[in-house]
C-alpha cells in the first residue's frame, strides 16, 4: 500500500501552526516514514496536487483566495482546518468590527482601492471541512494525535470539554480564585491548559465548548467576585467571528 499523501496550505495567518508541525522535531522523521508530504510551501519547493489530506491554515480575507481554496477541496479526500484563523477566523476577525472600506482607507489612504480585502472568514464559509485542529497555535501533540487517527481511519479527538478539566489534572492553582479572569471554564480543551500552567489566563484560542454551561460558569465567577463581563472581554480576541457572518 502506498503511503498517504499529505499537503499543507496557508491563507491569511502567521504560519505559526505550520511551524508547530516543523517543531515536532522528535517525531518528524517518524512522520515522514508514514506519510509523504507533497506540498508545504513554507518548507519545500515541490508542489504536487495529488494528495489525500490537505491541512489548511489561515483565514479567507479576499475573493481571490476562494478559487485556490476550492481547488484544494477538489484535490483532497479530506480537508482539515488547522488553527484558529482557519477554523474560526481567530485574531483576523477582530477587524471585522470595522467596515472594510474604512479599514482600507485608514491603512492605505488614497491608494486604498489598489488593495483587495473583505471580512476575515473561516475556511468553512467557502468549502466543506472534514475536521478541525483548534488553537492559536495548534498544539503539536494534538496535531500528531489527529494525523494518527486519520491514518487508521478513526475520527480525530474533538476535546469537547473545558480547559479547566486539563488544568485540574495538572494541579494548577485556579486563576479565578486569585481574581484573574480566565476563559478556561467555557473554552474547548486539548491544549493541556498550557496558558494557566504558565500563570497566564486562557484567552479562548480554541473556541467555545459546544455546550458551555454559562449559568454554572456565572455562579462560579460570582463566587470569586468576578462577572461574566470580566472574562467576556477576552471573547473578542479569538471568538469575534459571528456565525451569521458566514454567508454574508
Amino acid at each position: 500500500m502506498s503511503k498517504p499523501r499529505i499537503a499543507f496550505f496557508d491563507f491569511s495567518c502567521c504560519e505559526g501552526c505550520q511551524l508547530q508541525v516543523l517543531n515536532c522535531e522528535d517525531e518528524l522523521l517518524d512522520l515522514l516514514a508514514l506519510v509523504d508530504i507533497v506540498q508545504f510551501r513554507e518548507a519545500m519547493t515541490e508542489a504536487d496536487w495529488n494528495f489525500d489530506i490537505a491541512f489548511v491554515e489561515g483565514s479567507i480575507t479576499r475573493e481571490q483566495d476562494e478559487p485556490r481554496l476550492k481547488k484544494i477541496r477538489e484535490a483532497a479526500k479530506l480537508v482539515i482546518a488547522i488553527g484558529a484563523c482557519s477554523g474560526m477566523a481567530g485574531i483576523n476577525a477582530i477587524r471585522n468590527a470595522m467596515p472594510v472600506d474604512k479599514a482600507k482607507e485608514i491603512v492605505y489612504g488614497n491608494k486604498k482601492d489598489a488593495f483587495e480585502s473583505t471580512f476575515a472568514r473561516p475556511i468553512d464559509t467557502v468549502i466543506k471541512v472534514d475536521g478541525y485542529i483548534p488553537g492559536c497555535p495548534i498544539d503539536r501533540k494534538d496535531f500528531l494525535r489527529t494525523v494518527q487517527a486519520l491514518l487508521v481511519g478513526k475520527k480525530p479527538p474533538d476535546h469537547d470539554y473545558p480547559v479547566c478539566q486539563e488544568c485540574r489534572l495538572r494541579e494548577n492553582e485556579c486563576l479565578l480564585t486569585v481574581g484573574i479572569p480566565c476563559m478556561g471554564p467555557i473554552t474547548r480543551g486539548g491544549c493541556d491548559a498550557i496558558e494557566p500552567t504558565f500563570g497566564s489566563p486562557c484567552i479562548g484560542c480554541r473556541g467555545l465548548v459546544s455546550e458551555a454551561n454559562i449559568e454554572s460558569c456565572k455562579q462560579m465567577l460570582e463566587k470569586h467576585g468576578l462577572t461574566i463581563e470580566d472574562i467576556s472581554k477576552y471573547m473578542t480576541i479569538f471568538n469575534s467571528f459571528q456565525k451569521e457572518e458566514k454567508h454574508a
Partner: protein
Amino acid sequence: MPDHDIHVHYVTRVEGHGDIVCKTNNGVVEKAEFNVVEAPRFFEAACVGRAHYEIKDIVTRICGICACGHALASLRASEAAMSIEPSEQTVDLRKIVLHGETIQSHFLHTYFLAAPDFLGVGSVIPLASSHKDVVVRALKLKKLGNDISETIVGRHVHPITLKINGFSKLPDPAALKAIQKRVIEALPDIEATVDLFSTIKVPELYRETEYISLGPTNGDKEYPFYDGDIISSLGQSYRPSNYQQVCNEEVDPKHTAKLCKHKAPSYQVGALARFNNNYNLLRPEAKKIAEKLNLKAPNHNPYNITMAQVVEAVHVAYDLIDLIDKVLTKGIKEENNKYQPKAGTGAGAVEVPRGILFHSYKYDSNGICQWADCVIPTTQNVRNINEDMKTLVPTIIGKSQEEVSLLLQMLLRAYDPCISCSTHLINVRFE
C-alpha cells in the same frame, strides 16, 4: 542571448506569500522585482481599543517564526509608553528568550530554507535519506532553540509568560541549568554546522548599500539584540523613540507591505547589517568563525546574510551559556511586577532574527491603546531586495531561465523574508 520571462508565484521556503517577476528584452532588463502579495492583516487596527495587557497576545500573532521578538518589541514599547523600567532579572531572562529564538530561527533558515538550494534539492525532505546525519543535527539544533523558549516562556509560538514588567511565571532554575548544559553539549553540532557552511560557496553579487541595526548605547560592550540605539552604516544614530525618522514608511500599490527608505535609496536590515555595523562587539568565538567562513566586515554580498546567521548562531550560543550563568548565580527571585497604567506614547526596538523591529503604541490614562504601529524587518528590506535584483540580473542574463530564476529565489531566501509579518497597517487613528 536568450530573453527571460520569469514569474515565480508564491516563492517557496520563505515565510508568507511573495512573487518574483523578471523580464528581459534583447538583453536589457525590463523588470526584476520582488512583490509582496500577502493578504493585508490589519494588526494595528486590531490593537486600537485594546487594554495594555492584551496587546502582546495580539501582536505576537503577527508572526509564528519571530513571535518572541514581536512580544519583546511590544513589551518594550508598552513599558516606554507607561514609563515602566523592568528589573535586571527580567531583562536578562528576556535576552535569553530572544537568543533562544535567534538560535531556532537561524538554524531553521540556514538548514531548512537556504541549504537545500546549495545541495541541489527542493527541500530538506530528500536529505532525510541522503544526508540523514545533517537532518538529525539540524532538527536537534532547532529543537534546542524551541526548548529554551519552552523553559522560559511556555512555548515558542506564541510565548505565554512574557508580560509587561516581568513574567507570569519564572523559570525553574534546575530547568535553566539543564538548558545551559544542552547548549554546551550542542557546541560540537554548531561546529559541524560551521564546517558544512564553510564548504558552501554563495553566489557572487556586490552592491554597497546602507545597513541599519541596533548599535550600542553609551559605550556598551554587548553585541546588541535587545537594547541599544538605532544606527546607520552611513553614520547617524537615533533613540528608538525616533524610529520613524529611520524607516519613513510609504505606500506602494504593488505591495501590501509598505516601503522604507533612510539616507540611501534603500537599506538592509538583518544578520549581515548587524554583522557589518557591530563586528567589533562579536564574541571572539564568533569572530573566529567569521574568519573561517571568510566573512569580513563590511561585506556587501547579500547572499552572505545566511553566513552572517551562522556567525551569529555561534555568538548567541556562547552568550547564552554566560547569560544563564549570570541569572543562576544571582538566583531567580519572585518580583513584584505590578504597575499602574498611564497615558503616553512609546516605542521599542529589538533585533529579531531577520533584522530590526519597531513597535510603538499610544495609550490613554486607562491603558487603552489609541494608536499602534509595527515596522517589520522584511518591510524595511523590500526596497533593498529590489535594488539587489536590478544589480544582479544584468550580471547573469546569459544564463538559462532556470538558473536565473534559482539565483533570484536564492537571493530572496537569503534575506529570510517574513512576509506575513510585513503586511500591516500604520496610522490608525480613532477620533
